[in-house]
């Protein structure tokens, strides 16, 4: 339960409230290996420890990168860390996105807000072996245009790899030339073969509900839909009880779940 010490190698501003920390072990030991979708517990000295997904690899970073939205005490303290500063890290923890199951199939990735961060490593995994997957679509929605993350990477994903990238924002002023609406509306605008599609969904619960409904309506079976759950986490190793979601401990059975395995509980308020 004791964190290892890591150094901030690079700090990247991603949007007005979101930044990335690229980390490496302070003692120079090799980077931990992880699967896309897994997370680490990051500790800011004296303030606290929070679960943050690994958001890389991404071009120009060492590989252990975390993209963080500043929302409260700990994320604020992490934001204040400068290049070279030390932080604590425990991990990686949790389940991962179903890359193997997706091989040979179409892949639809639906992300809302900061939810794109834990999905970015999936995208890079798919790109590594682009020809092993069918159509790939990324549907990404945020509240406003200035909340969008990783925008520079979209063009490469589109142009070089032929990924269908559809961006939507909830609200925008007249300078925005893209789509306005909820992210699920763009599902109709991408092509995939529902019977041979794996869907990976990460975002606010409300958005994931609509996304699951829509994918099911399009004929994607429940056991081909994967999504993440978020709950308070204090330990990440099954001891503190905080992350329970029905019978699941999100820290060890999740955060990535196959929809049919949790749907009984996903439908219930305040579970």
């Amino acid at each position, binding site marked *: 339960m004791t964190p290892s010490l890591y150094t901030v190698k690079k700090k990247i501003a991603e949007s007005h409230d979101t930044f990335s920390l690229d980390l490496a072990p*302070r003692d120079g030991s090799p980077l931990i290996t992880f699967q896309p979708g897994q997370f680490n517990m990051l500790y800011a000295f004296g303030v606290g420890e929070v679960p943050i997904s690994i958001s890389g690899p991404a071009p120009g970073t060492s590989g252990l990168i975390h993209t963080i939205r500043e929302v409260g005490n700990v994320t604020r303290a992490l934001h204040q860390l*400068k290049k070279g500063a030390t932080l604590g890290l425990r991990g990686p923890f949790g389940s991962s996105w179903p890359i193997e199951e997706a091989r040979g199939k179409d892949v639809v990735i639906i992300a809302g807000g900061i939810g794109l961060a834990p999905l970015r490593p999936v995208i890079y995994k798919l790109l590594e072996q682009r020809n092993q997957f069918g159509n790939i679509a990324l549907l990404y929605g945020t509240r406003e245009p200035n909340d969008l993350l990783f925008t520079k990477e979209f063009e490469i994903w589109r142009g070089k790899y032929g990924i269908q990238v559809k961006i939507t924002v909830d609200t925008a002023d007249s300078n925005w030339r893209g789509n306005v609406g909820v992210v699920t509306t763009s599902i109709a605008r991408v092509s995939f073969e529902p019977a041979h599609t794996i869907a990976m969904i990460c975002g606010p619960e409300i958005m994931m509900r609509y996304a699951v409904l829509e994918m099911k309506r399009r004929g994607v079976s429940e056991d081909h839909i994967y999504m993440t759950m978020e709950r308070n986490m204090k330990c990440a190793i*099954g001891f503190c009880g*905080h992350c*329970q979601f029905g*019978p699941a401990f999100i820290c060890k059975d999740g955060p990535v779940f196959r929809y049919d395995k949790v749907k*009984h509980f996903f439908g219930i308020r*305040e*579970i």
Partner: protein
Amino acid sequence: MTEKKIIDREGLNQLIKVLLDMGFQVAGPTLRDEAIVYENIQSIKDLPEGWTDEQDGGIYRLKKRSDKALFGYVVGPHSWKKFLHPPERRLWKATLNESDFEIIPEESDPRKFAFLGVRSCELHAIAIQDKVFLEGNHKDPSYQLRRENAFFIAVHCGQAGGTCFCVSMNTGPRAESGFDLALTEVIHDNDHYFVVETGSDRGMDVIKKIPNRKAEAREVEHADSKIAEATAQMGRVLDTTNIKELLYQNLEHPQWDDIANRCLSCANCTMVCPTCFCSTVEDVTDITGDHAERWQKWDSCFTMDFSHLHGGEVRTSTKSRYRQWMTHKLASWQDQFGSSGCVGCGRCITWCPVAIDFTEEVPKICGSENSNTAVTKENEAPHENS
């Protein structure tokens, strides 16, 4: 099972002394603030001689007995988890040096505990916590150390309390395993003695150091009939047939609202429950800001903070928190750890200020006349949850 022995009151005193001399910190039942609680003891003088407890929903009362029994009561507000999984402990310290810092792990706790008077339901509760802290992918080394060092002297219950239902949960009243020594207290005519069973080599070594003799068949019979009396006396009953499925099917049952109208969300039930393991952490710094510590503390699913997310708490209603508690104990625990999370000790019933009672509520929620249909609301419009 090896042959049973007899020790008398002085023998029990010797047993405590031998364990103290072996370096154990001996903890046992003792009287404090009008309740029988578990604290360090030095001799049988510290035990609640001649006392018994009366328990019912929301009621705990001590009463004088007509005899000098040392274990003539059932379980009180404490459980052994306060020693094995302490209410608070420091996990580590850290010191800051500009923008760098060092973490100093906590040294391991050198104490070895001997627990005297552990009831069967409590041994089961400890085995259940072992699954949480020792049998998953991660082990809690500090729990492991305390657990492996501990010496267990069980006491088979010779009477049951008003809120006990260990027979329903298959966890008592006779301790079957998990002890080093097990005692049955017998008071018969003018005799007062303990029938001793050994459950481990360590137990055997210890019993050799105190005056004892072989038990006679008659004495063993007296002991067995005491335990049979307790079995017949259970204050409560809980039908656990299909309880997991029934609770899962009834997550939106109106009875949850009825309970929520009474529940104070005070967290007493989770604090007294011997299997509840939840904890939180607190990060503290000193006045200079250069020294930080991380503490682990018991937490309860009845607090608002428990389900805090930056968008708001997940379980804001008392209904949802009570539902978490009961479905965790009786249903999801089975999926998580392969057994019920309830050992039928009755503490949550006794210590509930408004006498909410599992054994009354479960039949209302799971009873056939009320069980409603599927709960998955897939076809309804999605709603915001957090």
